């Protein structure tokens, strides 16, 4: 080779130079800083501003956080401890208020000896949710259920739960762990029963009440099978009417009779004992669980070809979206009392849950309608071409895609609704943020405390909302079908 070119090329390099190190500004931390923080004049200014703001916040609040007091009986004592430890004029956070009143922030005025009941209900919530939320991943289910089992049982033991209930909770939680390995679909039975069980655990009273509610759908199914031999349309009507008749006319008496025969009661807890995060989570979870199906139905109704259905759906959605949630809550707490016959006690928490559900269902309907509209027309036509009827087309082709598109919007609505539960303060319920903090401040020991309760409650809200948001991102990744 060298001979061929000996006359034409004076020099041929036959060894490569060793690669030089990249310039300092193009490597390591410096490069990262240049790329991410100082990539241009605007970003440089923004970075400097950001650092200044962080420095401002830290320098102003650091001493306050650093001088935290956890053990004190009153604000005055906190101030004395701070003055003694860090000198006169020092300021500090008095977290002792959280230490002393944490139980009210979590459970409201729920009887102390029954704290294990909401705790168990919350633990079992994860059993009910796991097969729905993590239907495809056995590994995640195992982790979630494992953590729920350990924490729930440990907390129940700490809170002195009776042995019988400990055994029950352990059986359900460990049973769920085992079933989830082999037959996760079976856990859905528990998910369906959970709302009634949860209501019973939280409010107590006779177990026959929820049991008799459960008889309703069973009777409906029976009616559907029996009448179905005569006519399909009549069967649907019967399946709807029979449970309603049962619930309104017979269920109450049946529950009373059964209770007098075989007593299955646990101590009842009235709604006015609920408060704090127990109240927020009860309203939030019920609202979330009911508003999604209701929202789907409303969204489908609004896109329906049937004029009456469509008009009603539009009227409902636009009315609810046009009215502030506080107005609805006032209606629930004040006006309903006048419309109902005197003497009927219609639980205030139930009224609030209904209003919150209707409110978020209207928003949910619009979010899902957005998803339905984003679906290409071809999908609908393909479903028609396959000869699917309306419900099959929706269930198998349209909704799975539409819901997937709407996940961020749906979760946003959930998060918004969960935070809106603090508005129940205006109807005299003890939400954790305002009412509970005001009640704590109304005691002579803690009057004058301001930021600590807000920071504590805000932090817990952040944990829950951040959790929901991370879950939605996981769900989006899992459902992504485009690039794989």
């Amino acid at each position, binding site marked *: 080779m060298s001979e061929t070119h000996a006359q034409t090329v004076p020099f041929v390099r036959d060894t490569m130079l060793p690669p030089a190190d990249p310039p300092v500004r193009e490597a390591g931390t410096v490069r990262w800083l240049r790329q991410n923080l100082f990539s241009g004049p605007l970003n440089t200014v923004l970075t400097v501003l950001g650092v200044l703001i962080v420095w401002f916040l830290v320098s102003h609040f650091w001493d306050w956080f650093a001088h935290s007091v956890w053990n004190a009986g009153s*604000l005055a004592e906190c101030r004395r401890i701070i003055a003694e430890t860090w000198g006169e004029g020092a300021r500090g956070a008095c977290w002792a208020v959280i230490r002393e009143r944490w139980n009210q922030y979590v459970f409201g005025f729920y009887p*102390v000896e029954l704290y294990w009941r909401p705790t168990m209900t919350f633990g079992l919530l994860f059993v009910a949710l796991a097969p729905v939320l993590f239907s495809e991943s056995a590994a995640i289910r195992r982790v979630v259920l494992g953590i729920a089992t350990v924490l729930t049982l440990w907390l129940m033991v700490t809170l002195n739960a009776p042995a019988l209930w400990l055994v029950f909770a352990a059986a359900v939680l460990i049973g769920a762990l085992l079933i989830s390995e082999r037959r996760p679909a079976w856990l859905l039975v528990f998910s369906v029963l959970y709302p009634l069980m949860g209501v019973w655990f939280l409010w107590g009273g006779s177990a026959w009440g929820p049991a008799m509610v459960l008889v309703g759908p069973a009777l409906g199914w029976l009616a559907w099978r029996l009448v179905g031999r005569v006519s399909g349309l009549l069967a649907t009507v019967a399946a709807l009417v029979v449970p309603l008749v049962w619930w309104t006319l017979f269920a109450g008496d049946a529950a009373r009779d059964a209770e007098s025969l075989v007593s299955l009661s646990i101590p009842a807890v009235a709604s006015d004992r609920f408060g704090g995060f127990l109240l927020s989570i009860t309203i939030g979870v019920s609202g979330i669980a009911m508003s999604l199906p209701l929202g789907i139905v409303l969204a489908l109704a609004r896109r329906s070809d049937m004029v009456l259905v469509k008009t009603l759906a539009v009227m409902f959605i636009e009315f609810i979206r046009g009215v502030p949630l506080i107005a609805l809550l006032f209606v629930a707490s004040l006006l309903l009392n006048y419309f109902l016959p005197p003497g009927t006690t219609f639980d205030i928490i139930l009224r609030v849950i209904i209003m919150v559900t209707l409110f978020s269902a209207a928003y949910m309907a619009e979010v899902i309608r957005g998803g339905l509209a984003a679906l290409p027309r071809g999908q609908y036509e393909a479903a028609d071409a396959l000869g699917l009827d309306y419900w099959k087309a929706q269930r198998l082709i349209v909704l799975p895609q539409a819901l997937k598109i709407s996940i961020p919007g749906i979760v946003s609505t959930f998060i918004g609704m969960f935070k809106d539960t603090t508005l129940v303060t205006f109807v005299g319920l003890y939400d954790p943020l305002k009412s509970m903090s005001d009640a704590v401040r109304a005691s002579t020991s803690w009057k*004058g405390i301001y930021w600590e309760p807000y920071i504590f409650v805000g932090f817990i809200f952040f944990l829950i909302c951040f959790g929901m948001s991370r879950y939605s991102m996981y769900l989006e990744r899992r459902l992504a079908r485009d690039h794989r």
Partner: protein
Amino acid sequence: MKTSVFLGSVAAATLMAGAGAADTLADVKARGELNCGVNTGLVGFAAPDANGNWTGFDVDICKAVAAAVLGDPSKVKYVPTTGQTRFTALSSGEVDVLARNSTWTFSRDTDLKLDFIGVNYYDGQGFMVRKDLGVTSAKELDGATICIQTGTTTELNLADYFKANNMAYQPVNIDSNAEGEQQYMAGACDAYTTDASGLAATRAAFADPENHIILPEIISKEPLGPAVRHGDNLWGDIVRWTLYALIAAEEYGVTSKNIEELTKSSQNPEVQRLLGVTDDLGAMIGLDKDWAKRAILASGNYGEIFAANIGEQTPIGLARGLNAQWTQGGLMYAMPFR
């Protein structure tokens, strides 16, 4: 307060039809529990403690009524009410008595169809300022920024007062007492105004109470009292005379400590009538002989209730002032038990 007036009017209008048949006493007895509307939390007047037990000056009125009617001061269901829901809760029948530091005004008594049965605390609106501001009278507050809770009668009083004295002020609107304290401490306003009892409680909770003064001027009358629904006069009488029994007991020196002894030994005919030794006053309001005795035993006479919740020995440290007995130069004056 506009919302509550509106809702209250709606409530009152809807209630007209059913008002004739009201028999609150029978309802309460059948229920075995008194539903008492209280504040969601106001230092000294009504507050739940760490275990959810209610205490306070207004709460003790509820206890006295429950003791008189049901024989047990613990048979009270406390219904926390907000400034917006309080009057509707009463007119809709959700509560039997509203003991929630509500000011007795013309429109509430007439237009909202409530009956204020008396006054258990004479309050008035005052101002608190920082000492180094050098102000000694509310008349010197011309041009000051003032923290004021929106939607309350205090807001209207403030406007009236400054207008009457031809002064100007800059309002800083706040939503709750806690926020007001925070704004005032942060220097967002020169003066903080609310009821004098609230100012005293607020000042007591400061880290440096000695640097703040409450100005001598009281610019409004705030007679706070329990209220019941219009149209059930028997029930109104029961609550009214329970309150009078507490006030009269203090006047005659009947306390929860010496009540048993006085029942046996007192020669004062008025005390004998009050405690049911002679005459049967209870029967005239549908109760038994010992009703007043039980009411006084619940948490003591008016003076004891005052001292235990908001008096000078408590952190709030309110002097009796206008709330002293009429014999001590105050306004507490129970009608004769005869």
